[in-house]
């Protein structure tokens, strides 16, 4: 049995700060739904995090529409949003030594509410998502003492415990070693296969191409391209977006690759 699809969408969204003097988004349109991984590319400061904050309901758009499962986001309570969309921040450090189990159990908050203690079924869900990500040996370790990759997995486990089918991930691969990057990508494609949808921001066009079913490019407050990875990632566009010259080619295994063009990228630009 397949559950009906879930979607989150921004339509023509503007966002201005400081009484309209500074504009971050100008008519941005982007959506994602279950069964896909959408990678969001953009230079530093392009507004990727702001766009996420709009989708999660942390910010209100100056104009335009934000919709969740086709309905206005503003018609949902914070708790109802949390049951539908989970947020996975970068693996950070907390000031208090919560165990991995305690951090993942926080994911049950939207379901239990703030006053009810987790029940047996909540504990089962927590243990099953931890097992699914292969983290059983970490379950009672303090979150403050595990590695950056393990922390990122813990936050993904918390998002899964939340039961939301849409996941918004803020640069999850940043700071992970090669092994964790590959494991992360495998977990994400497993998630889409079982009915989750993922929107992920990344600094690496190559990660985006390996990972995503769709790539969107955020530039000057608008989504300037949104489509199949092969169509969106071109040498001209990546060079313009990041201000460095790159070549795009297909490797012998059929994957699309990027390479900087030697001698063309001065230090001042890098």
């Amino acid at each position, binding site marked *: 049995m397949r559950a009906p699809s879930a979607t989150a969408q921004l339509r023509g969204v503007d966002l201005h700060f400081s009484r309209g003097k500074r504009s971050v988004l100008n008519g941005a349109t982007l959506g994602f739904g279950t069964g896909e991984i959408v990678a969001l590319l953009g230079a530093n400061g392009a507004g990727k995090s702001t766009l996420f904050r709009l989708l999660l309901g942390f910010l209100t758009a100056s104009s335009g529409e934000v919709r969740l499962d086709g309905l206005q986001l503003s018609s949902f309570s914070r708790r109802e949003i949390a049951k539908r969309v989970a947020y996975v921040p970068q693996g950070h450090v907390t000031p208090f030594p919560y165990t991995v189990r305690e951090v993942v159990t*926080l994911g049950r908050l939207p379901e239990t509410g703030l006053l009810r203690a987790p029940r047996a079924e909540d504990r089962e869900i927590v243990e099953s998502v931890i097992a699914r990500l292969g983290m059983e040996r970490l379950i009672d370790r303090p979150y403050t003492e595990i590695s950056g990759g393990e922390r990122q997995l813990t936050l993904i486990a918390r998002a899964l415990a939340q039961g939301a089918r849409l996941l918004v991930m803020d640069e999850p691969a940043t700071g992970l070693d090669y092994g964790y990057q590959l494991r992360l990508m495998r977990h994400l494609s497993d998630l889409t296969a079982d009915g989750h949808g993922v929107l992920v921001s990344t600094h690496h066009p190559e990660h985006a191409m390996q990972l995503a079913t769709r790539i969107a490019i955020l530039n000057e407050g608008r989504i300037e391209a949104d489509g199949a990875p092969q169509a969106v990632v071109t040498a001209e566009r990546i060079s313009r977006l990041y201000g460095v010259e790159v070549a795009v080619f297909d490797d012998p295994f059929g994957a699309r690759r990027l390479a900087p063009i030697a001698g063309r990228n001065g230090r001042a630009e890098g």
Partner: protein
Amino acid sequence: MRLALLPFLLLAVVVLALSVGRYPLAPGDIFAYLGAVLGLVELSPERFDLLHNLIVEIRLPRVLAAGLIGAALSASGASFQAVFRNPLVSPGILGVLGGAGFGAALGILLSGDFLTIQLSAFAMGLVAVGVGVIVANLFGAASMVTLVLGGMISGALFTSALSLVKYAADPYDQLPAIVYWMMGSLGAVDLKQLRGAALPILAGVGALAAAGRALDALSMGDDEARSLGVPVHATRYGVIIAATLVSSLSVSLAGMIGWVGLVVPHVARLAIGPTNSRLLPASALLGATFLIAADCVARNITRAEIPIGVVTELLGIPAFILVLGRARRAWA
């Protein structure tokens, strides 16, 4: 250690505190008196009156006051630490102590009546936190950094106002009273004042404990708490109000009693972990236990009573050094 052990520890310290004093009693006397009250044990009327006088009239108010104040300071310290995501925060972070100190001094200057001093300390503690929060909002959205800065500014303002009051006070009469009040003492608390303060303190500590799960989410970060469905601003301000209420009440009862709100939550966290729905009740119980024990020391170590604030400082500083040694690993 288990949370369930802490009430027994508290009970043991209560029995101890009711026993020791200038006229020492055996713990058996306490139970004999309890039994007589319940009609289970026969005591001679003279013996019963003596025990009643010692236990209920003299010692119980102090024990209850120490317990309530210890619980209030520790629970508010633990919740401020969670709200500000900083294990080094104490209940004074938003200026409540500076405000209450000024309020008490003002009360001493204007009337000297104990109830006036208490009300003035309580009210000024709340006003100081209010000023801190308003200053924080002047800087823009009240984030944690602006709140801490607002609290520093408000605390400094009320501390300088306190200096002014001290300067204006009569140096032979009012000034020593202000200085003594600042050291903290349970000597002037009676059952009537306790009846007024007990219910709001217990309600405030209960409200803080009920916010435990929201505080766990909040200590991960504002955005994460929001993404887990937690109303971040309502939780933060609700906790600040409850914690300010109970710490302000405790300062108004007994003056400045330092270190309890900082050290006890640390010890509790080492004993039972950081989960706030368990940590807050544990901090309250442990804080009550600690302050009752500290009051036993304050009453009995010398012929004259020494201020309890001095005892908690002398005990709190080495305890904090030990705790830092054990907790260092988690912060490195």
